[in-house]
Structure formats: C-alpha cells, structure tokens
C-alpha cells in the first residue's frame, strides 16, 4: 500500500519515502509490539496498585498487633510512615515515580527495600522455571511429533492419556508426592533448598546456582545444585509438557495435511527430510508462542512448588507477602512477574514476526 502511495509522489522523493515507510515492515512491527508492551507494563502497575488499594483488606490490621491497633496515635504514625494518609492518586504517582527509579518501596514484613528482596529471590525462580521450560520444550515437542506421526496408533493413544494426566495433576500435590516418595522414602533425590548445606553455595555472580558454581569452578556445588533442581523442575514441567505435547501434535497434524507436504511426499523425498525440512519448520512456529504462554503457567506453578521444596524464590515470597497483605511486596511481585512474562511474550512475538513474515502484516 505504501509503495502505491510513494509511486504517486515525485520521482526523486519516491525511493526515500519507500524506504522509510514501506521497506521496514519488521521495524514497524517491532515498534508496535514494544509500544504495546510498554502500555501493558504501565497497565500492570495500575492493576497491582488498584487491587492492593481499593480492597477491603486493611494493611494496618494485618501488620499491627492488637495493642497497637487500640492506640490511634500509633496507627496514624504507621499510616504516615507508609504514605497511606495521602490521597490515592498521589500514592500512585509517588509509587510510579519510585518505580522509574527502581524504588519498589519497603516491605512491611522484612523491613528491607522490596527491590532488594526481589533481586535476591528472582534468580532462584528463573533458574527453576528456566530448567522446567527447557525440559518441557524438549519432551513436549518430541512427544507431540511422535503422537502426530503415529496418529491413532498405540503411541498416540498412550501419549494422549499421559499428556491429559499431565495437565490434570494438581501441582502442589504432585510436589508433595514427589518429595515424599523420592526423598523421604527412596532417598534417591536430595531434600529441600538449592544446594546441600554441607557443601555450601558458590559465590553469587548471576544468582543462578548452577551457573555460579561453574564460574567458581566448583564441580561439587554444580552437581549438588543440579541434583536439587531436577525434582522441582520436573514437577513444575509436567503440566507444560502435557500442554506442549497436545499442541505440537495438532500443529504437526495440520501441517501434514498441507499441499506442499503432499507434494514433497509425491516427489519421493525421504520421510526424515520431509519431517525436519517441511513439517517441523512451520509446525514449530506456533509452538513457540504457546511455549511463551506456558512460561506463565510455570511462573504460577512456582508459587505452589516452591513452598514444598523450600526453594528460596519469588513464589514463596509472593505467598508470604500476599497472606500478610504486605502491599509494597505484593505490588513488587505482581509487577516483576508480570513484566518478566510480558518481556518473554514480547520476545516470542518478535521471533514469530522474524520467522513468519505474514505475522508482521496483521
């Protein structure tokens, strides 16, 4: 369309206009996506703020003891200390201004800046969720492809039942069962936490225990950290494995029905070439999008899994701050998790746009 517009303009201006408006659909696509993401991030700050302020739960009753509550002076002082005596829009403006400078406020429970708390807990969760999404992608895609290729035969039926079980198991219960069976009874997996306390943690560089151990050259710490990571990551991954298996299966089946695959088969190309060059290349594009969304369910799952495995991540922190109505901490968690999720889906969107040019035009 822009090529048509530029064609109507004078001859020497046309190439310049074309380059700026028409030649970079990818740049325009990126700009649009990033703008949407920024708007959503702002929306997230608004939602977390409104939710934690326009609700019946009063942080004063949640944080002060009975005796202190009876004294209006102490209550008023506490409110003033936490900025709760100002009008709501002013509280929000202050909150937003602070956020821009990396100030998430002070946690009413830990009496530390929320940013500090988050910096401490986020890497542990990212390590757990990262391990889980890696496992899910490998197993989910492999299972999905097998199910599609063996459609309506035994492997398909078995994988269908297994993946449906995977998305039906309550994560918190599975975590408990896995902990009981593998650690308590069989004693083949290490217990809670991120590394064996007898070995000690590697000096923190990235906050990811496995990476830090490698940086420090501590092989024993690395082995211990991986050992501690396996069970919670697998428990967490089960749901997304099921999800990705089902989705990959239908994506592959859809591509198998396309004319160009039929043409490739008619040409007599070997099945392996058809599978990798023709089928997987296009079938996996939508799978990437689903994997991005699945990351959200992983982040959700960490809240339920971290409690059982005593994993010192953001899930446990979220739970503790939500139950004590620790407003700055709750807002911080909601914001950080929301933004992490947003960034991952932005990356996925962009990847999608880079891989599949049709997407950019929508």
């Amino acid at each position: 369309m822009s090529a048509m517009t530029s064609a109507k303009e004078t001859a020497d201006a046309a190439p310049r206009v074309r380059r700026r408006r028409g030649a970079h659909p990818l740049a325009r696509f990126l700009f649009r996506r990033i703008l949407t993401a920024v708007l959503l991030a702002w929306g997230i700050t608004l939602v977390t703020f409104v939710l934690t302020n326009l609700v019946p739960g009063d942080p004063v009753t949640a944080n002060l003891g009975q005796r202190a509550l009876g004294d209006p002076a102490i209550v008023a002082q506490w409110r003033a200390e936490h900025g709760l005596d100002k009008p709501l829009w002013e509280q929000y403006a202050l909150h937003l201004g602070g956020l821009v400078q990396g100030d998430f406020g002070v946690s009413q429970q830990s009496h530390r800046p929320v940013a500090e708390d988050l910096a401490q807990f986020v890497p542990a969760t990212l390590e757990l969720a990262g391990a889980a999404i890696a496992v899910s992608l490998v197993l989910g895609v492999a299972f999905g492809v097998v199910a599609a290729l063996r459609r309506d035969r035994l492997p398909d039926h078995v994988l269908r039942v297994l993946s449906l079980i995977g998305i039906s198991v309550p994560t918190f219960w599975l975590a408990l069962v896995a902990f009981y069976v593998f650690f308590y009874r069989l004693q083949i997996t290490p217990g809670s936490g991120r590394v064996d306390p007898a070995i000690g943690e590697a000096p923190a560089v990235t906050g990811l225990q496995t990476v830090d151990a490698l940086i420090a050259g501590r092989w024993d710490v690395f082995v211990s950290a991986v050992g501690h990571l396996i069970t919670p990551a697998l428990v967490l991954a089960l749901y997304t494995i099921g999800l990705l298996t089902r989705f990959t299966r239908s994506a592959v089946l859809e591509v198998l029905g396309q004319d160009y695959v039929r043409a490739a088969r008619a040409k007599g190309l070997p099945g392996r070439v058809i599978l990798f060059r023709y089928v997987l290349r296009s079938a996996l594009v939508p799978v990437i999008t689903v994997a991005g969304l699945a990351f959200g369910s992983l982040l959700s799952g960490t809240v339920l899994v971290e409690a059982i495995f005593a994993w010192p991540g953001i899930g446990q922190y979220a739970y503790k701050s939500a139950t004590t109505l620790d407003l700055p901490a709750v807002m911080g968690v909601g914001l950080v998790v929301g933004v992490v999720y947003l960034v991952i889906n932005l990356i996925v969107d962009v990847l999608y746009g880079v891989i599949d040019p049709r997407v950019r035009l929508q």
Partner: protein
Amino acid sequence: MKRDPLARKGLLGRLPEAWRQPLAVVGGVVAVAWLVVALAAPLLAPHDPLAQELPRLAPPGPGHWFGTDQLGRDILSRVLYGARVSIPLTLLLVVLSVLIGGLLGACAGYFGRWADETIMRVADLVFAFPTVILAMVVAAALGASLVNAVLAVLVVAWPAYARVTRGLVLGVREREFVLSGRLLGFSAWRSLRVDVLPNVTGPVLVLATLDIGTALLLLSGLSFLGLGAKPPSPEWGAMVAGGVEVFDSWWVATFPGLAILTVVLAFNFLGDTLRDALDPRTARAIKERAL
C-alpha cells in the same frame, strides 16, 4: 436463505461421534460418579466429616478406608463431602466465566470500535499476569474465604472466553445469513441470539469443559495456599495443605489430591474428545495419512 446450513450442525449434531471414544466414556462415567457423590455424600460417608472422634492419624484400614487425619477425622468422609464444596463452586465458576466472558467477547466482536478496544485491552491486561499470581493477589486483597477465591478465579478466567467468543463472532459477523438477518430488521440483540450464538456455542462449550479442570486446580490451589476454604471445611486443596504438616502420614494428603486429579482428569478426557470431534482442522487432517 437466512441461515447457513452448516451453522445448525453444532455441538449436538456431532455428539454421538464423540461418545464412541473410550476416553470420553471413561471421563463421562467418572464425572457423573463424582456428581452423584456430591449429591449423596451424607448417604455415602461412613462418618461425620467434621467429628474429631476417631484415633488420630490412623493408617488406612477397615473402618476408615482412607485413614484419619491429625484431628481424628475420617478422611474418606471428608473426601466425599469435599465433592459438595468443590464441584458446585467449580461449575458455578465456569458458568459465570462463560456468561461474563462470552457476553463481553460477543459485544467486542459484534460492535467493534471502542467496545472492542476497551474490552480486549482489559482482557490483555489480565493475560499479562500468570493466573495464579493474579488470582493470589486478588484473593489476598479480598480476604481469605472460599467465595473470594471463586471471585479471584473468575477475574482471571473470563478473558479466555471473551477472546474465543470475539474471534468466533468476528468470523461470522459479515457472513450472508447474519447480514440478511440485519437487513430483515433484526435488532443487534436478536441477531446475536438467533444468528451468531449457534455458531459460537460449540467451541465455547468445549473450552468450558476443558476449563472445569483448570478452574478446580486454581480453586484448590488457592485453598492450598490458605487463601480459600477455612480450615474445618473439607475442601480438597486445604486438606492437602493439612497433609503437609503431617508428612509421615502419607494418606492425609494423598486421597484429597487423588480426588482433585480424578475430577480434573474426567473433565479433561471429556473436553479433549469433544474438541477433536469439533475441530475442523483436526478433522481435515484425519483424512491425510501420516508420514
């Protein structure tokens, strides 16, 4: 030619096909069994689910088949009564999500413009959060109770229906049978109800069937976190949380967890089969031979 002939052949037309699937039959039987349990819990339960009169932490055996918990309550009775807590609330939750999300999605798709923009941007915002995190923040903000947990799940559940309904409505909005209805002078409401709705119900019902499992998982997850059912209530998620305290006595957490698993699995078996029976893309692929 008011209606597309295909539009009439919705979910009901294809149901018998779905019922030939063993998974659907198993899922259906288990789901109905749980509904019966929910209705007949007082007749089936051997003990009062709240009475603390049995030996504490007795392992499963004759007299109390699922054992007893740390307060000397019969776990079998509590699991059976738990069906009365979780199943009606989950069904109510899904019905409300379908109604709210469906109505908003239909408005967004049918009217477009600002209605579309407003509704879908709010839906996008909800989607920007991982579900449990948002539900947890909402539940914590409203205060810990089962009703508030239901509201919290509702907040995160409706946008999925809004998106699906909007997409489906957009797909049929410009079709001849809808346009001719409008030309005959149908009001927007009548057009939506008579011409658009039959094309939307099938996929939305499949989504709802699959969503029953997700909703129950979320609801029991919130209770597990202490943001849902209050302690004496025989809610399955809260019972699993109680089992965490008495780790040694595996039966305390195992049986309520299995109850959640079987209910969720039953509805997922049903929903998955229904989806296969409905999804034209998959139906098309059936005809193609695999590699």
